[in-house]
C-alpha cells in the first residue's frame, strides 16, 4: 500500500478533499438564500475546475498524452468556467 503515497498522490488527495470541504462550506453558508449568488456559484465552479486540473495532471497524468491533447485539456479547464459565466449572465 506504499504506492498510495508515491508521487505526491496522498498529498494531492488531501488537497482535493480540503477543496471539496471548502466548496461545500461556501455553498452551505448561502443554502437558505433563494436569490442567485453569482459570486458563490463562480467560486465553486472555479474550485471544481482547479480540482479537475489536479486530477488531469497528477492522477490521470495527461502530460503523457501528445502535447495537442494536454493543451486541449487546459483549454477545457480555462474555457469551461468562462463559458459557464457567460451562460449564467446571458
Amino acid at each position: 500500500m506504499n504506492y498510495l503515497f508515491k508521487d505526491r498522490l496522498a498529498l494531492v488527495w488531501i488537497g482535493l478533499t480540503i477543496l471539496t470541504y471548502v466548496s461545500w462550506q461556501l455553498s452551505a453558508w448561502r443554502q437558505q438564500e433563494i436569490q442567485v449568488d453569482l459570486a458563490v456559484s463562480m467560486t465553486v465552479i472555479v474550485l471544481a475546475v482547479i480540482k479537475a486540473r489536479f486530477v488531469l495532471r497528477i492522477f490521470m497524468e495527461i502530460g503523457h498524452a501528445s502535447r495537442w491533447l494536454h493543451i486541449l485539456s487546459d483549454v477545457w479547464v480555462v474555457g469551461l468556467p468562462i463559458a459557464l459565466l457567460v451562460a449564467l449572465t446571458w
Partner: protein
Amino acid sequence: MASKSPDSPLEMSEAEAARIERHDENPLDGIWIFIVGDLFIFGSYFVTYALWRHWYSEEFIASQQVLSQGFGIFNTLVLLASSWFVAAAIRAQRAGDYDAAGRLTLLTMGWGLTFVVSKLTEWVIKIREGYTFTSDMFFQFYYFMTGVHILHVLFGMLALLRLYVEVKDPVCRNNDTAESCAAFWHMVDLLWLVIFALMYLMR
C-alpha cells in the same frame, strides 16, 4: 545530420528527433482523444444547464434545495478516493508489483460500487418523495446528467474488472491497457467534480 536518441542506439534524423521531442507520437493517444472529446461533450451539457438555470433561476434554485448535499459530498469523497487508489494501482503495476496492483484495483472497484449504491439510493429517495424526471427542468437535467455519468461509472467498473483480470494473469498483462482503464476512471471522477459543483453547490 543524424542524431542519437538517448534511449536507443539507432541513428535518427533531426526531424524524427524533433517529432519525438514534441511528443507527437503516443501509443495511448486513442484513449486521450476519447477522454478530451468526452470532456468537451459534457462541457456542452454543463453550459446548456447553466443557460436554463439562468433563465429559470427561481425554479432551479427551489428544486436544487431539495437535493441532499450529504449524498453529494459523500459521493465526491468516494470518487476522489477511487481516483487516488487507481493512480496507486498504476504505480504498483509500473513497479512490477502485481499483487499490490491487483489489491488496489479491487479496492478502487469497491469505491466505485459504493458510489453506484449511494447514487441509486439517492435516486430512489428522490423518486419516493415525488421528484421524478418529469417534475421540472431541474430534475430533467439532474436525472439526465447523473444518469449519463453513472453509465460512465458502470463502464469504468467493467474496465477496472478487465484491468484486474489482466493484472492477475501474467500472460495478459499489458501496461497500455492498464493506463487506459485508469485514465477512463479518472475521467469519471473528474466529470463528477463538475456535476457536483453545478447541481449541488451553485447558488
